[in-house]
Structures are given as C-alpha cells and as structure tokens.
C-alpha cells in the first residue's frame, strides 16, 4: 500500500474488493441458473409450438374429413334417388312429352304437374334446394323453381360454361355421380353446387338428375371455430383463373364468401394459395389482412377447394411469450438478490479495511486525534487495534517534539533579536562616525576658505583706506564749487523777481485797454440789435453802430485774447522765482552736508587702519584652527574604519542566527502539521 496517490486509492481498493466479490458471487450463482433456465425455456417453447401445430393440423384434417364425408353422402343419396323407378319413369314421361309433335310445352307442363309432388318431396327430404331433370340432349325437362326454367338447354346460353354443364357432361360421359363446384345461378340468392347423377332406363342412359345443394351446411362446418381461440378461423377457397376465390364467410370479414379474391403469387395468405393448388402444409405466414398467423392447410378433393386453418401468431404463441417474460423476470429478481447479498458481504469485509485506511490517511495528513472503534474480534479487528496503538504512541512522541521545538524557537528568536539590535547599534555608531568625519572635513575646508577670505578682506581694507584719503581731498574741492553755485543761484532769483514785477505792470496796462475795447464792442452790438429792431428807422443808426464796432475792433479786439496770456506769463515768472529760491536753499544745504561727509570720511580712514591690524591676527588664528581640524578628521576616519569592521562581523553573526531560526522554524512547521 503506497501513500501516493492518496485521493483515489481508497476508491480503487474498495472497487477492487467489493467488485471482485460481487463478480465471483454472480459467476458462481448465476451461470448454472441461466443455463438451466435457457434449456428449460427452449424445451417448453418447443412443446408449446408443437401443440399449437398439432391442434391446427388436426383441426384442418378433421374439417377436411367431415366435408369429404358430407360430399360422399350427398353423392350417394343422389345416386340412390336416380336409380328409383319413379324418377326413371318421370324422366321417360317428360322426355316423351318434350318430343311430342303437337304443343310440346303444354304436354310437358302436364307431365311435370304429374311428377311435381314426388320430386318436391324427394328434394326436401334430402335437403336439396333444387332438383333438375335433364334429357340426354341437354334440355332441362323439369325444374323446382323458375331460376332455371324447363326447356333451357344446358350446353348453350348462360349455362354453357357453368359447373352444371360440366357436371352434366361428366355424368353423361363417365356415367357416374359427382359433385360440382358452387356457383351463382340466376341473378340472386345463394351460390349452389349440383350433384349430377346419370338416370338409366333398362340399361340405357335416358337423362341426368341434377340436385342443387346450398352452401349453408358446408359453411356451418367451416364456421365452427372451436379449439381455435379468439382469432382462429377456417378459410376455404377455390382456384379461379390466377386467383383464389374465398368460398366461406370469414370471422373477420363476414361477407367475404364468393367475393374476396386473393391473387396467386403474392405473399399474403400464401397458405390458402398453396392449399387451393393442392398442397398440404404448415407454417407461419401473413394472412389476407396482413396479420402474422400460424396456419395448417390441406386440399378438399370433393369440392376441389383449398382449406386453411389458421390462428393469429400473437394468440397462438401467447403462452410461449408469457413463459419467456416469466423467465426473464425471475432471472432479474435472482440477479438483484444475489447482487445485494454480495454487496452486503463485500461491505462486511471491506468496511473495517476502509476505516483503517481513513485513520491511516488522517495520520498521514497530520491529524493524530483519530479514534478507532474496534467492534469485531476477527483479523480486521486486530488490524484496527494495532493501528490505534500505533496512533497513540505517535501522538505522544509528536507532542514532546512540538514542546521542544517551541522552546527552541523562542531561544533562536531571542538570539536573533539581540544580534539585530547590536547590528543596529553598530550601524548607528558607524553612521555617526562618518557624519563626524564629514563635519570635520567641512570645518577644515571652511577654515581654509575663511583664511583666504580674511586675507582678501585685509587687502581690501588697505585699499579702502587709501581711497578714503583720496575722497576727502576731492570733497574739499567740491565744497568750494558748491559755495560758488549757491551765490550764482541767489543772484538769478533776484533777476527773475524783477521780470515778474515788469510783467505785472504790462498786464495792468493791457487789461485797461482790453476792458475799454470790450465795452465798446458790446455797446456796438447792442446798438446794432436795437437798430435792427427799429427796422427802417434804425438803418442810419445801424451804420453808426457798425462804424463804432469797426473802430473798437481795430483798436483792441485782437487784444481780447491777450489778457489771459500775460497773466499766465506773470504766474510762470513768480513760480520760477520760488523754484530758484528753493534751489539755492538746497545748494546751501548741500554745501553743509559735504562738510559733514568729509569729517566722517576722516573717521573711516582711521578705523580702516585699525581694522587692518586686527584682520592679521584673525587670519593667524584661523590658520591654526584649520590645521587642528585636519588632525581631528584623520582620527575620526580611523575610528569609522574600526566601526565598519565591527558591523561586518555582526552581520555574519546575524545571518548565522537567521539560519538557526529558519532551521528551528522548519522543524516546528513539520511537527505542527500533526494535530494532537
């Protein structure tokens, strides 16, 4: 038993054991049973089929014998009647009457009237429906009814090809009694067969006696279906041309007599075809309805008919079918019973094995809690008990391993945590050292730059001192220039004030002139308007007004627009004077400020000289600091190297711890698969 594949192992084993048991149970129990049943069924159905055949053949033979006997009896009765002296005499009398010279019909009727009572009695006592007396030439001398009237010739007209003519010929030539075939005579009524018997008078043939026989008696025999079940029947038929004419009423077709024709050579009703052809036989075939039937057939020589006794195959073999279905049902019941029994036994055996397998699979899956019920004390019970013992031992062992692995796991985790922590500390330490190195390096660089900058600043301070000295000299020159400018500005302002005063005087004069001109102009306009209003009388005045206006225009109209210009000029001049005053004030302030600046520059020059010396001291200090920073940096680099080596060692230790923890984890996982 291998553990893989787990999934369908159980089913295959189950199928194997249960299936094999089932198979052999069935083989042992069912094969003899089936053989026996088959043989018995075969024998029984043969017997049944034989009995059906015997019944049909015997029935056919019985019917044939009965009809043959009836026919023989009728022929014998006819022969006896024909030999009777009364009848011989009647034939003689009737023949003479018919051959008389004068009025043969009346004499024939008279003779017939003399013999009618006897002949009617004879026919009814023997059960004949018709009685004919025929002379040797074929003329009918006497008839019981009018269907075939006296005086008719048998060998001519409608009767020329009839069975009656055939029988007449046979009786006249063979001189013996015989039974003819059934045939319709006249327009209506039943078909009729004639028994023809020769009539001898003193050893000489004087006529023929024909006795008409109805089909009822024959049909009665053939319609007796006793022993033929529900569907059995008897079919009779005679050969007419190339078809068989059915001569009996049938059970399924009541008006088939002398109407139904079965053509020869078809596969329908082949029994009656063979019977009518004179063969005897038995077989299963299709009848005139197309139904499958079992039939026995033979030939009736007296009637020249074929006779077939048949029964529907379904009915005939009903017993055979019943027997077959009974056998099949019993066989199925036996198979089911045997299968159930086999299954129960197989389960009884395979059940404990399946339980053992389930437990084993559970253990394989890691679940050790499985409990086994030991219910029986045979070999399977012992197997289950052993498995239970094994499971409980395994459970104890795994439990101890699990406890140990948990403790181990805790230890490994603790070691790893410590190692990680140390590693972190070392890493931090290394980083701090590196930062310190970088910072010191930065300080060193900065110090050097500072030294350089201080040197440059010192130079600059020296130059600044020089430039300040030069600036002070320039400022002293500028001060003198500014003072000159202030004086010039003052004199310019005074001149502007004079201009402004003159402009005001001009304005006054112009204003006076303008006002006069304006008044004059206004006066002249109003005068002109008044003159216009005065109409014709004002015309002279209008001329005067115009002259006044022209005068005013000439003197001063042009100056109407001057006044404002002069005013504006005057205003501009006074504004200029004010601006000049402001400017000279500013120049004076400038002169003062320049003096102050020159003083401050002197202070700056002295300070710059002092700063120059101090810058020298600072530069020296910075240089010393830069050297110290370099030394610190080297020391810090060495410290950082040491820290990184320590961190590497800690890394190795840490990875070893991780491996240890992984190994313990694997062990724990393996053990934890088992559920206790």
């Amino acid at each position: 038993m291998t553990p893989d594949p787990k999934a369908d192992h159980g089913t295959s084993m189950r199928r194997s054991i249960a299936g094999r048991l089932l198979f052999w149970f069935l083989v042992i129990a069912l094969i003899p049973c089936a053989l026996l049943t088959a043989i018995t069924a075969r024998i029984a159905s043969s017997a049944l089929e034989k009995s059906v055949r015997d019944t049909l053949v015997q029935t056919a033979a019985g019917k044939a014998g009965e009809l043959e006997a009836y026919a023989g009896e009728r022929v014998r009765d006819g022969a006896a009647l024909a030999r009777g002296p009364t009848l011989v005499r009647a034939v003689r009398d009737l023949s003479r009457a018919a051959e008389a010279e004068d009025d043969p019909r009346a004499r024939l009727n008279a003779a017939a009237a003399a013999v009618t009572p006897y002949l009617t009695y004879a026919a009814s006592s023997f059960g004949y429906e018709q009685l004919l007396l025929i002379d040797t030439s074929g003329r009918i001398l006497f008839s019981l009814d009018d269907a075939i009237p006296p005086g008719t010739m048998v060998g001519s007209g409608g009767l020329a090809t009839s069975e009656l003519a055939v029988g007449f010929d046979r009786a006249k030539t063979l001189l013996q009694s015989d039974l003819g075939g059934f045939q319709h005579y006249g327009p209506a009524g039943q078909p009729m067969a004639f028994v023809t018997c020769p009539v001898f008078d003193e050893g000489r043939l004087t006529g023929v006696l024909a006795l008409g026989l109805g089909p009822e008696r024959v049909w009665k025999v053939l319609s007796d279906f006793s022993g033929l079940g529900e569907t059995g029947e008897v079919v009779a038929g005679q050969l007419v041309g190339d078809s068989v004419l059915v001569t009996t009423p049938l059970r399924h077709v009541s008006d088939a007599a002398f109407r139904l024709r079965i053509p020869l050579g078809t596969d329908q009703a082949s029994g009656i075809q063979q019977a009518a052809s004179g063969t005897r036989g038995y077989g299963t075939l299709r009848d005139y309805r197309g139904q499958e039937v079992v039939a026995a057939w033979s030939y009736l020589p007296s009637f020249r008919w074929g006779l077939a006794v048949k029964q529907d195959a379904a009915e005939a073999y009903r017993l055979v079918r019943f027997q077959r279905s009974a056998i099949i049902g019993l066989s199925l019941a036996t198979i089911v019973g045997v299968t159930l029994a086999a299954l129960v036994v197989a389960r009884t055996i395979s059940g404990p094995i399946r339980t053992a397998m389930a437990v084993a699979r559970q253990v394989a899956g890691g679940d050790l809690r499985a409990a086994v019920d030991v219910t029986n004390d045979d070999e399977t019970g012992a197997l289950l008990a052993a498995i239970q013992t094994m499971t409980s031992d395994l459970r104890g062992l795994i439990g101890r391993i699990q406890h140990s692995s948990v403790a181990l796991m805790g230890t490994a985790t603790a070691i790893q945590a410590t190692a990680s922590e140390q590693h972190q500390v070392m890493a931090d330490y290394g980083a701090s050292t590196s930062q310190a190195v970088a910072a010191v390096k930065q300080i060193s660089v900065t110090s050097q730059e500072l030294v350089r900058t201080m040197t440059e600043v010192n130079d600059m301070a020296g130059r600044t001192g020089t430039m300040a000295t030069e600036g002070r000299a320039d400022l002293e020159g500028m001060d003198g220039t500014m003072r000159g400018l202030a004086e010039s500005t003052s004199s310019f302002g005074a001149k502007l004030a004079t201009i402004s005063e003159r402009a005001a005087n001009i304005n006054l004069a112009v204003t006076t002139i303008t006002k006069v001109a304006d008044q004059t102009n206004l006066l002249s306009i109003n005068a002109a308007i008044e003159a216009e209003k005065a109409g014709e009388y004002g015309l002279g005045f209008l001329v005067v007004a115009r002259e006044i206006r022209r005068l005013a225009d000439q003197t001063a109209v042009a100056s109407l627009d001057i006044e404002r210009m002069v005013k504006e000029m005057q205003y501009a001049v006074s504004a200029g004077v004010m601006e000049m005053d402001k400017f000279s004030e500013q120049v004076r302030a400038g002169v003062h400020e320049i003096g102050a600046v020159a003083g401050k520059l002197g202070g700056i020059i002295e300070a710059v000289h002092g700063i120059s010396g101090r810058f020298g001291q600072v530069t020296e200090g910075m240089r010393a600091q830069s050297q110290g920073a370099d030394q610190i940096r080297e020391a810090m680099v060495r410290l950082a190297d040491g820290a990184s080596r320590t961190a590497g060692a800690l890394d190795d230790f840490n990875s070893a711890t991780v491996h240890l923890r992984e190994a313990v984890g694997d062990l724990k996982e393996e053990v934890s698969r088992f559920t206790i």
Partner: protein
Amino acid sequence: MQLLTFSIAGEPCAIEARLVTEVLPLVPARPLPQVPDYVLGMFTYRGDLVPLVDLSRRMAAGPPRQRLSTRVIVVEFRPPERLADAAVRLGLVAENVIGIRGADKAAVGSPPLQLASAPYLGPLLRLGGETVQVIDIRRLLPDDLLAGLFPSVPSVVRPTEGRS
C-alpha cells in the same frame, strides 16, 4: 436780415438778430439740480429769473473757453406749439460774440436741416467766404424741458414787438 455771429468749438454760427433782446458780459448763474449739463442755471435779468443755457455744451462741443468775448445773448421767442401770446426768455452762453452781419434772403445756402437728434439746426449760409450755421433757438430745448423751465405765468411774457 441781420445775424448775430458767434462760434461753437471754433466753427462760425449765427442767430437772427431780431430775436435777440440784448448781449451781456458773462454773468454767474445759480445752478439747478437734476437738469441736463447744458442748463447752467438761473440768472437775474432786469429783475426776472431767466434760464441760462450753454450753447457749446448743448451742441455737444464741451464747455466754452473763458474769454472776454464769451458773452450771454438774451433772446425772447415764442416756442413752437404754444399759445400765440406765450413768449419765453432765455440766456445763451457763446464764444466770440463780437459782431453783427447783414445777410440777404437770397444768400441762404441751404434749406433748414431736418435732423431728429438736432432739431435746432437751421440753414447753412455763405457769408464773406465762411460757412455759417444758423441756429433755430425756438427748437433749442426739448419740449418737456421747456415746459419744466416755464411752468407758469411769470416766465411767460406777452410779446410786444418783433412779430411779423
């Protein structure tokens, strides 16, 4: 026909002299609230309060320059569609009011203009090489404003002369 000439924004204009009562120097006016900007206010003329209208602003040419020749023309006329005897008096401010010119009737250059936005524009005349616009002062102010400025009797005077 005599015309009183003046200028609006430098362009020569004129009104009929027979409608003019008198030409005055520029006088201050008392302003009126809520009136168009060309109505400068009311001023006193011989004891009556007369509306003062700035022709320059009325003809959309901005305020007039303050000059000696900027004067007030007092006119009296009968507004159209008023009673036959209802005449009103207005003061008009214009620049360069310095002359009167005679004009022949035949010298009329064009018929009166028919502008809906400026109904006061009269005919254009050729006078001594200049094209002068005659202003029809009777249509200077819109009807509603005229009715508002002269609502009652005191400002409506009976015409005494100058009617033809």
